[in-house]
């Protein structure tokens, strides 16, 4: 190949490079379209759980001379639980950082899978919050939302959001376990029982909470079927003998369970991936903010138990549980 071809190729490359490098668009403030406009953001984070809220903020506005807002409607692909609502107040944040609501319409009305608010004030701009309470029907499915607004001049706009996955897991917050009283934990029911209640349904008891004063014991959660030497002074009700698998965890402060500042979330996938091959059957001396991965003896449920708080004087602990049905 002659030198000439090389030169041409090089020149072409240089040209291409300079063209690519010069594409530097100037930012321009977007022009309003002059009519009714809208926008949506999702405010809630983390896995969407049945019974919990998914929160959005829906903003809509039009120039004052074009008319006023008439109504705002949200249509969900799966009808939300009856407590689903669209705020009829428009919020702004004041100087102290508090959200202040200004009533702009009548309280929202749920009809089939739509939730709507009719404006009662002469309003040209509003941001309404939408709280979708995930219904049981949505478990393990995806849900879409269509936000729409209507103005008095007949104009309508809409904005689609989603799809959002709804997790199959369940969550139960702030169960109080008390040593020698309500100390029998059922993962199947996600509840805490006393000895008398446990005796009536021994097949549902997966764990027992024990508090003992030695500093190497303190707040402990054990399988009823654990070595009796680790259950000092505990008389288990007849039939309560399951060997539940436990894996200790630390620094895993799920935001929904702990409600602390950490942006960590446990979702279905984490349960699917969590192995229990080398699990223990007891966890002694648990501290506040500690966690436990749990697999029930029959393998039906996997769960994550978080210790929200402990009290040595009260011999109690507050626990929160996320539970995933594996089978």
């Amino acid at each position: 190949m002659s030198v000439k071809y090389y030169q041409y190729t090089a020149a072409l490359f240089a040209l291409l490079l300079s063209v690519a490098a010069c594409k530097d668009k100037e930012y321009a403030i977007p022009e309003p379209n002059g009519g009714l406009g809208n926008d949506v953001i999702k405010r809630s984070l983390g896995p969407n759980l049945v019974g919990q809220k998914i929160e959005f903020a829906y903003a809509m506005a039009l120039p004052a001379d074009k008319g006023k807002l008439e109504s705002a409607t949200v249509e969900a692909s799966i009808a939300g639980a009856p407590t689903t609502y669209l705020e009829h107040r428009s919020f702004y944040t004041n100087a102290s950082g508090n959200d202040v609501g200004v009533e702009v319409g009548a309280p929202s009305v749920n009809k089939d899978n739509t939730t709507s608010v009719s404006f009662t004030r002469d309003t040209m701009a509003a941001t309404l919050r939408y709280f979708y309470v995930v219904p049981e029907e949505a478990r393990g499915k995806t849900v879409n939302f269509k936000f729409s607004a209507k103005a008095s001049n007949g104009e309508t706009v809409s904005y689609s959001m989603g799809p959002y996955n709804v997790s199959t897991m369940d969550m139960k917050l702030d169960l109080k376990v008390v040593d020698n009283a309500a100390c029998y934990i059922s993962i199947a029911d996600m509840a805490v029982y006393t000895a008398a209640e446990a005796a009536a349904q021994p097949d549902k008891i997966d764990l027992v909470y024990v508090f003992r004063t030695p500093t190497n014991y303190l707040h402990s959660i054990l399988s009823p079927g654990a070595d009796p030497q680790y259950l000092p002074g505990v008389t288990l009700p007849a039939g309560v003998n399951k060997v539940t698998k436990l894996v200790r965890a630390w620094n895993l402060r799920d935001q929904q369970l702990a409600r602390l500042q950490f942006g960590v979330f446990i979702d279905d996938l984490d349960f699917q991936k969590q192995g229990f091959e080398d699990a223990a059957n007891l966890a002694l001396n648990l501290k506040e903010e500690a966690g436990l991965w749990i697999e029930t003896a029959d393998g039906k449920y996997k769960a994550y138990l978080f210790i929200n708080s402990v009290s040595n004087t009260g011999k109690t602990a507050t626990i929160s549980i996320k539970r995933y049905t594996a089978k």
Partner: protein
Amino acid sequence: MKKYISIAALLMLVALAWSSCSKDKPVDEDGLLITTRAECYVSNFELLGADFQTVRTKNAVIDTTACTINVEVFYGTDLKNLWPQFSLVTDAKLDPKITGKVDFSDLANPKQYTVVSGNRQVRKTYKIFITVKQ
């Protein structure tokens, strides 16, 4: 001009070939540098539980003469799933390697790990004795 380019290229090629073939630093089967150091001991020992938190009640006692490590662990520790961590003297390595959780539950037969010195000539086998605090 063309001649110069080809000569330059040739020179570069030779230089490259030469530099890549010079091997003056010996490495062992793990690709680790074999040095002149003959020191061979464990300087610190740690045991972690399944939650990667320590299970020791106090510092491990390391006897570098008797080649023993004595560790006391918390009551109720799951001895089947412990993650040992050794700190070794510079350039030394451990045999067998620690690749994951280790079962320490057989207290009658303590686990043994061999420290190999930097020059790979000195080998010392440490025994790990675990006691559970009652």
